[in-house]
């Protein structure tokens, strides 16, 4: 796979159908990784696997690992990722290191029997343990909070870079506490796995800028009727970074509840590139056909990492297949094949992105 040039910026989106991860090259071999996912076939951690293939050493080149929220589909492999990126600061919502959440996560992990299938809570617990054991820097996301400035890139690559978190808002934090309160294991309750609920109150949206060039990463942030939450509070903020993003990681797998006309009108450039990953879980499949139509209408070009319908069953010996049929079970792959959308840009004035699609990724 072609290595990135020092004067190129890159945004890569990995998505197997359940989970996603964004890898950003800031310039001069400086990288940021947002969330984590695994290849469903190899179970390797997609961003680390990618770095290995293009000759990047994550232990020295990754500046930040950002966990946008704690849902299972965004944290798979996160603890291994954080450990591999030994010099990176860890970024999360402050709520994830506060008493209520740490107590909840610890109660789940210390109190329950272990299972092979793991869980997002376990990933976060392992991350918290690693961070406290190693004393690594933790940075907290908040509205319009500058979490990284790289002026040194100006001399080496010709531009500086800044990363700003746009959420979660105070109101979203309040709502998150309510959710945590209902999930904390109590005496006498039957042991179970934590099940994160929507909406994604803590989702961290990110603005990454290189001079006038910017991208917007929507995480799983949802729009709500409450103007103190979701995208409304971001768009209305006078303090938010100004400009129009030329690439937009579509929030919440393209679902309607992640859509905001105001975001497209005020924060995204006309003709911008849209990137998204699908979500499949039970009968929920995102994006829907309506979602795709809406995104294609708004974006200049839109790409998705995988085809959510593409989930053939695993091939098994005839006798096993017969037994499954006898049971009446219907099986399919939990996730489609991992896909990768890569946009690279040499910071030219026309902000043209060069697109490469691999795995199951395709143009909408």
């Amino acid at each position: 796979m072609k290595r990135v040039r020092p004067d190129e910026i890159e945004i890569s989106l990995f998505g197997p159908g359940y989970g996603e991860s964004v890898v950003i090259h800031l310039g001069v071999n400086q990288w940021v990784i947002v969330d984590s996912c695994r290849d469903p076939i190899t179970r390797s951690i997609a961003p680390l696997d990618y770095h290995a293939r293009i000759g990047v050493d994550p232990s020295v080149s990754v500046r930040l690992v950002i966990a946008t929220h704690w849902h299972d589909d965004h944290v798979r492999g996160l603890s291994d990722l954080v450990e591999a990126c030994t010099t990176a600061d860890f970024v999360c919502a402050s709520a994830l290191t506060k008493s209520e959440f740490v107590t909840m996560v610890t109660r789940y992990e210390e109190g329950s029997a272990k299972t092979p299938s793991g869980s997002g809570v376990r990933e976060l617990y392992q991350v918290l343990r690693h961070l406290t054991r190693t004393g690594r820097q933790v940075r907290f996301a908040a509205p319009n909070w500058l979490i990284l400035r790289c002026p040194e890139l100006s001399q080496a690559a010709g531009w500086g870079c800044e990363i700003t978190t746009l959420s979660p808002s105070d109101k979203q934090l309040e709502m998150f506490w309510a959710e945590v309160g209902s999930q904390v294991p109590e005496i006498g309750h039957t042991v179970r796995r934590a099940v994160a609920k929507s909406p994604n109150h803590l989702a961290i949206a990110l603005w990454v800028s290189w001079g006038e060039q910017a991208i917007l990463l929507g995480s799983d942030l949802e729009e709500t009727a409450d103007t103190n939450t979701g995208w409304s509070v971001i768009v209305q903020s006078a303090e938010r970074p100004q400009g129009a993003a030329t690439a937009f990681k579509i929030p919440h797998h393209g679902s309607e509840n992640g859509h905001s006309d105001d975001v497209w009108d005020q924060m995204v450039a006309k003709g911008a590139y849209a990137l998204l990953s699908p979500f499949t879980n039970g009968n929920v499949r995102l994006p829907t056909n309506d979602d795709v139509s809406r995104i294609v209408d708004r974006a200049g070009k839109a790409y998705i990492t995988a085809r959510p319908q593409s989930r053939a069953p695993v091939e098994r010996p005839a006798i096993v297949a017969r037994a499954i049929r006898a049971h009446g079970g219907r099986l399919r792959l939990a996730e489609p094949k991992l896909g990768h959308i890569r946009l690279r840009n040499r910071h030219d004035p026309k902000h043209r992105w060069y697109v490469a699609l691999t795995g199951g990724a395709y143009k909408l």
Partner: protein
Amino acid sequence: MNSLVSINSTALHLNSSDPGTLNQPVRHGWSENFLVTASHHGTLKQPIGHGWSENLLLTTSNQPTLMQPIGHEWSENILPFAVADELHKAALMRPPLETAPSVDRPFAETMNLLPHQQQVAFLPPAAPAVDVSKRPSFVGLQEWEGVVTEIRDRAFTARLMDLTHPNPDEEGEFCTDEISEDDLNLVVPGAIFRWSVGVLKMPGGAKRPTSQIVFRRLPQWTKRDLERADGVAKELLNAFGTMKTPDSDEARSTR
């Protein structure tokens, strides 16, 4: 002997519930667990394990008969006869039935018994094992661990991890009609189960495809569990308290 040693090593926690019944332990782990329920009259009543691969499934009837495990011919199974034999030996060491913990005997007192007393206190009377060779036997072909992700009317969806081969995770839809009455209340989002498919070998040699879904019976969080967890949480929080955060001067200088 291994099986009994294992039973002891898992330290059965027996809670006394309604009169006459010593109810339910345990840690419910897949592999090393034994769930044994002693009921009145000193007999071992039903448990479970539900035929998990390495698990003991002990069933006794009202008769002082050890009705043998099951195991369903899982590959790593503890042999039923070995189990019966060990239990038989243990039963020979066992004090008279009336000395076993009674309903009136406080749980704490029960737990204060010497180890060998604990070992035998809940064992069934010695009895010959039933000949299992005449029973249908289950030969497992494929196993998954499932986590319930969604529940609808009389159906649920689960994410499945293949425990037999290194396949990618799968998703399956199941009808709750296939779940035993005892397990129905366990079908909630986040619940964990094991699904085994295989063939049932009949005594006459016929084979019939079959499958079994058994939900993992998880224990309840106890005060001790949560206190221990909270102690760990406190350590983590103390460590976070000493970390540099964006509120610290150094972090603020990056803004």
